[in-house]
Each structure stands twice: as structure tokens, then as C-alpha cells.
């Protein structure tokens, strides 16, 4: 069972697809119920979750620090194996796309990001990052933002098959779009389901939400399905790496392609969520992590290139985070165990490129782990205000700090 992909469920059921093919490139509102296209100039946020806990020290590498070499001799990169970016730090050699973004001042690296008193569990760390709360609550920070906005099933879309905690609101949540697209029944059943999902005054809050989720399925499918048949926007100015671009067919690249198609078509979505797993590198870390980071770097550079091609590159901001960094000292299996802080990347043309926050000093480890020098909520604060134009304390109560990440 665990090796059957979730996406296969629809295939296995053998129930046919019904989406009607249109050959339109741009989405045109067909009737009053359809959403208006997102106006050019509206900021769009893409959140990239790297799950498993990315090893920040081999992503933004302190290659010249002797402590780095001595604590992880088999795992330490040498100067000629990395892409130096100043202050004794370098990007992992697989991140050539990120290096170009850095050189163009479109990559902000926020160093030492984490939450207070790290507990090193995947589950609680991810829950804390996604909820922006140190104590367990059921809503995600984007979910709470959704509830500050007018109702719109396109407002926030997560690629995948289940709702990430990130998108969970109290009453309204984001929309989940499987990578394979959505399929709805046809004919009589479709028109009957449209009737059973009508809103009615007699519905309580939960029944109203249940009805809405079926209604939204038809609305979203109707808009999205024809668009997904379009080719992805071209990435004309993306340099081709000799021997092909690493990660070109990865799942993350596919998720980004879907996002690019839908943005190109003008779907009114302000927040997107994509994700990549596999960062829990307890063993044989070097090659595995490098391949994953190559995928991240390539997918994002290609996406930015696509956004340039369609004239949306100034609108888009990408934020990349993982639930924790990893232990400084290598373990006995050429990997690293769960750690604390790590770098967060924020990418875009409106971003103030360069380093933000302090690099946690390797000479001052706390319980063998990196210190947290930047609270993750400060990054959210900047993104909420700089991209989503929402005061931070409306989403993260009692929080008021932010970083200078965006040009005015």
C-alpha cells in the first residue's frame, strides 16, 4: 500500500474523466459565477515547503570555517566544490540557478531562521512553521490570511492531494489541486450534484461548508481543467546546462509548471503552495541532498523565467523553507540528525537581494546545534505586509517584527 501513489486513486477507480477541452490560452470569465482574472501588478506568493528538514549548512555552506570541516569531515564541501557568494559562504554546487538569481540581486537569504526552543520533531516543527504558533492550533497562517479576504475558491491553491495545515482556516480554507488535475462526473450526476450543493438558508455552518466544497469542485474544475491542457509558458531565457537541466521532470518542476500555466491564464490566485520531500538525510546525505537542491534551484529559476516571458515576474515572490536544519556534526552513517535553524530563501524582482539575519556562529553551538538568530515569524511578517498587504498581527496575533525584505 505505502508504495501506491495517492494520485493513482483516481486511475484505480476507473471512473472516467469528463473535463471539456477548450483551446483557449487565456482564461476568459464565461459568466457571472466565474472569477475575474487577476489584474497585472497584483502580488503573488508561492510558498515552497521542503519537508524532512533540509541541511542548511550544506545548502548555504560556511566552507571556510575550520569548525565546519572538523565537525563533519566526510560531509564538508571544499572551496572548489561550492559556489561562493561572499562572507565566507557559498551555495551548494547544484544551485546554479540560485547563483544567477543571487548575482541579479533577486535572492534574499535569511540566515539562522527557526522558532524558539526547537524540539526537533518533524511533526511539531512542521506544525509550528505552518501554524506560526508555538502551541498547537488547528489553523495555518495562510488559512488565517484567507479568512481576512473575500470568499474566493481560487484565492489560495495548494498542489497535492490533501490540505496542508498551512491552508487550514477556522471556517474557510484554501483549495487543494491534485497535480493530475481535477475530474468531475458528467451528465445527470453532475447536474444533480450541482443541486445538492446549492447553498440554502437551512444549512448550519458545517453543512454550508460541505455544500461549498462540492460546489467549488465544479467551479474550480471548470476553470482549471481547460487551462491545464495548455502548454506551460516558455522559459526562453533560461540557460541550458550541458547534459540537460537537472530536475527537469521532477515532481516539483511539474507542480511549478501547473502554477505557471494557471498564473499565465490569469486565475485569481494570490497564494500558491508547492512542496518537495526527501530532505530527511540521516544517511548518505551528500548526493541525495545535492540532487534535491538542484531540483529546487532549477524549478524556481525556470519558473521565474516563465514569469518573465508572460510579464508577471515583478508580481511573483517565492519563499522556500524547511521545518528545521540539521545537526552540525555528522552522524556515523554519513548523514546528519535533526537540528534547529536553517536558511530561508525569498526570491523575486521586488526582493532586496543579499544576506539578511546573522549566520549562527559554529563556535557558539547550543546543545551541539545552531542558534536561532531570526524568528521565522519575522519572515512571515515581511511577506504578509510586503506581498499580501496584510498587517502581520491580523494573522499572527501579538507579533510585530518583520525584516526589510522588499523594495518599496
Amino acid at each position, binding site marked *: *500500500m*505505502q508504495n*501506491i501513489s*495517492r494520485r*493513482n*486513486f*483516481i486511475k*484505480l*477507480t476507473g*471512473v472516467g474523466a469528463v473535463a471539456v477541452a477548450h483551446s483557449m490560452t487565456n482564461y476568459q470569465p464565461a459568466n457571472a459565477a466565474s472569477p475575474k482574472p487577476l489584474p497585472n501588478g497584483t502580488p503573488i506568493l508561492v510558498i515552497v515547503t521542503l519537508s524532512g528538514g533540509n541541511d542548511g549548512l550544506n545548502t548555504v555552506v560556511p566552507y571556510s570555517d575550520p569548525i565546519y570541516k572538523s565537525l563533519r569531515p566526510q560531509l564538508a564541501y571544499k572551496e572548489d566544490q561550492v559556489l561562493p557568494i561572499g562572507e565566507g559562504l557559498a551555495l551548494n554546487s547544484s544551485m546554479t540557478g540560485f547563483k544567477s538569481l543571487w548575482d541579479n540581486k533577486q535572492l534574499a537569504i535569511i540566515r539562522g531562521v527557526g522558532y524558539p526552543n526547537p*524540539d526537533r520533531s518533524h*511533526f*511539531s516543527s512542521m*506544525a509550528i512553521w505552518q501554524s506560526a504558533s508555538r*502551541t*498547537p492550533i*488547528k489553523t495555518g497562517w495562510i488559512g488565517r490570511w484567507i479568512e481576512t479576504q473575500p470568499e474566493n*475558491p481560487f484565492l489560495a491553491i495548494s498542489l*497535492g*492531494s*490533501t*490540505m496542508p495545515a498551512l491552508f*487550514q*482556516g477556522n471556517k474557510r*480554507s484554501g*483549495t*487543494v*489541486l*491534485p497535480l493530475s488535475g*481535477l*475530474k*468531475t*462526473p458528467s451528465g*445527470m*450526476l453532475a*447536474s*444533480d*450534484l450541482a*443541486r*445538492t*450543493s*446549492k447553498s*440554502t438558508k*437551512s*444549512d*448550519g*455552518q*458545517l*453543512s*454550508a*461548508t*460541505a*455544500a*461549498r*466544497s*462540492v460546489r*467549488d*469542485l465544479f467551479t*474550480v*474544475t471548470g476553470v482549471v481543467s481547460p487551462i491545464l491542457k495548455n502548454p506551460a509558458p516558455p522559459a526562453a531565457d533560461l540557460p541550458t546546462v550541458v547534459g540537460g537541466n537537472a530536475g527537469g521532470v521532477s515532481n516539483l518542476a511539474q507542480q511549478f509548471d501547473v502554477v505557471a500555466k494557471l498564473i499565465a491564464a490569469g486565475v485569481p490566485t494570490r497564494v500558491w503552495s508547492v512542496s518537495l520531500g526527501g530532505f530527511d538525510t540521516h544517511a548518505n546525505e551528500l548526493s541525495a541532498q545535492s540532487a534535491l537542491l538542484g531540483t529546487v534551484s532549477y524549478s524556481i529559476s525556470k519558473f521565474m523565467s516563465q514569469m518573465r516571458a508572460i510579464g508577471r515576474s515583478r508580481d511573483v515572490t517565492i519563499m522556500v523553507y524547511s521545518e528545521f536544519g540539521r545537526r552540525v556534526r555528522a552522524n556515523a552513517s554519513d548523514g546528519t540528525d535533526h537540528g534547529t535553524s536553517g536558511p530561508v530563501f525569498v526570491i523575486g524582482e521586488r526582493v532586496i537581494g543579499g544576506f539578511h539575519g546573522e549566520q549562527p556562529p559554529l563556535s557558539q553551538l547550543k546543545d551541539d546545534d545552531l542558534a536561532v538568530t531570526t524568528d521565522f515569524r519575522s519572515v512571515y511578517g515581511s511577506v504578509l505586509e510586503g506581498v499580501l498587504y496584510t498587517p502581520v498581527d491580523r494573522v499572527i496575533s501579538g507579533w510585530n517584527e518583520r525584516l526589510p525584505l522588499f523594495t518599496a
Partner: protein
Amino acid sequence: MVVSTVERIAIARLVHRVGFGPKPGQFKKMLKMGFKASANQLLNSGMPDYGDVKTAIGITDLGAQPKPNDPALAPYNSAKRAQLRNMSLWWLDQMVDQELPFGERMTWFWHGHWATSYAKVDEPLVMFDHIARLRKNALGDFSQMCEEMILDGALVYWLDGQLNTAKSPNENLARELLELFTIGVNQYSENDVKEAAKALSGIRVVKNSGLVSKDVRRAWTGESTILGTTGYFESATLARFLSLTPACQNFIPERLSYRFISSASTMTDSLMKNSEQVKSLRLMKTAFKNRQVLPTMEALVMSPAFQDPINSQVKSPVEWLVSVLRALRITPSRCSQPDLLLLLLDTLGQRPFYPPSVGGWPADEAWLSVASSQTMIQAAQVIVAEGDLSSLTSVKKTERIDQLADWLGVAEWSNRTRIALQGAIADPARLVVLAICSPEYLVSA
């Protein structure tokens, strides 16, 4: 027979929330018996004696995992998958097949309470024993349950209890024992967590058998002070001690109320605004004074809050699927595509043995999304195609909509849904798909 809407709602709640939905004819029978008699029958249905399930379905100790290049690895992995599949289907079978599945309903509740996942435990036998331990104590003495669970191999391993030594403490198990299992958040200090971790230190777990032992060389042997009480605490004494605190007498009724009555408001909120809730919770807390689960559930079901129209709940994917299978007389392990059912639950985000975190599964709105609607509608078509629809086809078309409500245990259809059902009256399969995907069925009103 005319039954008031209030009574229909109460009985629909009883059969869906305290059971797993009605079998064909069961809801009508309960309407005849009335709420109180039906509740008493269900609550006192006990836990069946399953005999030696492990032998029957082939759950064994698979030994240590072979090394990556060992030819024994492939058969080991397939045996593991087969065992997990068997025990998943076996459990779903019990939920579906039993006439009065209250015992399994409670076992399911406790699975979400002591939420431990196969994802980390990775041993079918150890997870099977974990659930068996919950089942054994599901209706009985909560203190006894705490004593047994704190030394349960799956739970200890899941929360890194075997890494917790006097010299190098790991507070994971101690923290969750306090926060999620016995007394609740804000009822203890960080120092209580540290002291509890000392009391729980030195436990070893054999990964493949779940066998737990105490290694005194790794354990704290001194006294510890927990919630102001100093003594020589060990795992079992600590768990029992916590279960007997006043905080626990509040916490467990609150958790039961969250899952069986409403997740909408925390009890502290409702204490201020809803007197029905206050009264109901007080009744439950009194009933829990001897830490017995069954009387607490009786108090819950008989409380005014259980019948209060405001307290609706969304069926979780397991609740939805099991209630559909019960109505359609489909036994999971004997249907044409058992793996599809497991995949369905996985896709919807609620597979038995796989809670998403130690906090258990989410509730209500979390189960409603565009993606879950799509999956459910697809699944409904496949399942209905192989179900027994005779409850419906045996009555005249004009009676089918009311029959559908009685068969499925729906209190009442909204006008909107009634109109849609009317349009499908001549097509029983479509009628049932519509009904089980309707807001009235997805939500226990």
C-alpha cells in the same frame, strides 16, 4: 409511525457518532425503540471477544530488518506489507460488520487520543498490539489504560521513549503524556516535564517485537517532583498518578466531548457562553470521578449538549466510508477491491494506523475540500456499484426519498437535496451516490 424531528436528530447522532452509522433497517428499529432505549442498548453492547486474531490473520514478529543487500529483504518487505494490509482490513471489517459497533467506535477514539503512527513504528505486530491494548481498555478504567499505554512498545518508540536516559534526557514522551494524554496543556510547568522525563527514563524497546524493559543503568533512580508531589516515580506509577489528578478529570471528558459532541468551541469558551455545554460537561466530569470510561460516555450521550442542534459534526473519512459500507452491506476484506478502500482512506488523509501526528486527526472543516469532494464522489460511484441497494429498490419510487433517509440514518433532507433526489428517483445507483455525497450525510447534523 411519526417521530419528532428532535428525536430523529438525536437518534441519527447516536447511530452515527456513537456507532458507525446504521445497518439496513437499524435506524427504523431505533426510532421504534426511542432514543433512551436505543442508547442503552448501544452503550451496553460491550466489546466482542475476537479470540486469537493474530493467528487468524497472520500477524507475526518479522524479526530484525535484513541488511540492504540481503536477499531476505524483499520477502521481508512483502510480508510486512501483507500484515499491515490484513490488520487494516480486519479492523475495518469489525467496524462494518458488527451490529452494535460501540466497542470499536471507542477503540477508534482512543487511537486518535494516543495517536501513534505506523509511519515511524514500522512494525505490524507492534502496531497491532498497540491497538489491542487500547481495545482492551477502551470502555474500562482510564488509569489502567494509562499504566499500560505508557509501557506500550509502539507508543514509547513513537515518542522516542527508548532514547530517554537519566544522563541524556529526551522529553518527547513525558511532554505528550502530560499535554495530550492525561492532563492537557497549561496544566504543568516545564519543570514538571523534566521531572516526568526522569521518571520515564531507562526504558528499552525491542523494535520488531515491541517488548519493553527497564534498564536501571540508564534510568534515573532518585526521587522526582511532579505537580508538587515528590516520590519515586516510574512509568506506571507516574501514569496512574497523572490519571488521578483533578486536571485529568477535566481533560478526558473534554476530549470525549470534542470528538463526540462538537469541536467548534473549546470548553473554556463554551463554559462562558453555552449553559447546555456547561451542564453537560459537569455531568461528564462527575461521571468520570472513578476514571471509568463507560459511565462517562453514558453521561455524554444522555447530556443536553448531545442533542443540542448547534453541535453538528463533519464525518471523518473513516466514519463516512464505514457508514456507507454498513448501509450497502459491503465487508471490506471481501469486496472486489479491498486495496482501493485503503487507498481511498489514504487519499482522504485518514488511514487507520496512520494518524498524521501525535495530536491525532483533525476534525470538521479539515475534511472538507475540493480535493476530498472529488475523491469522495469518485469513490461513491465505485462503491455503490457493488453495494446491495435492495433497501431502496424494494420500495415504490414515491417512497424512496424517505426510505433513503431511514436506511442511511439521515435526520432530514433539506429542500435542496430533496429536489435533487427527486430527479434521480428512477436510478437507484445515482440516487445513493447523491445521498451519500450530500451535505446532510457528510455532516452529522
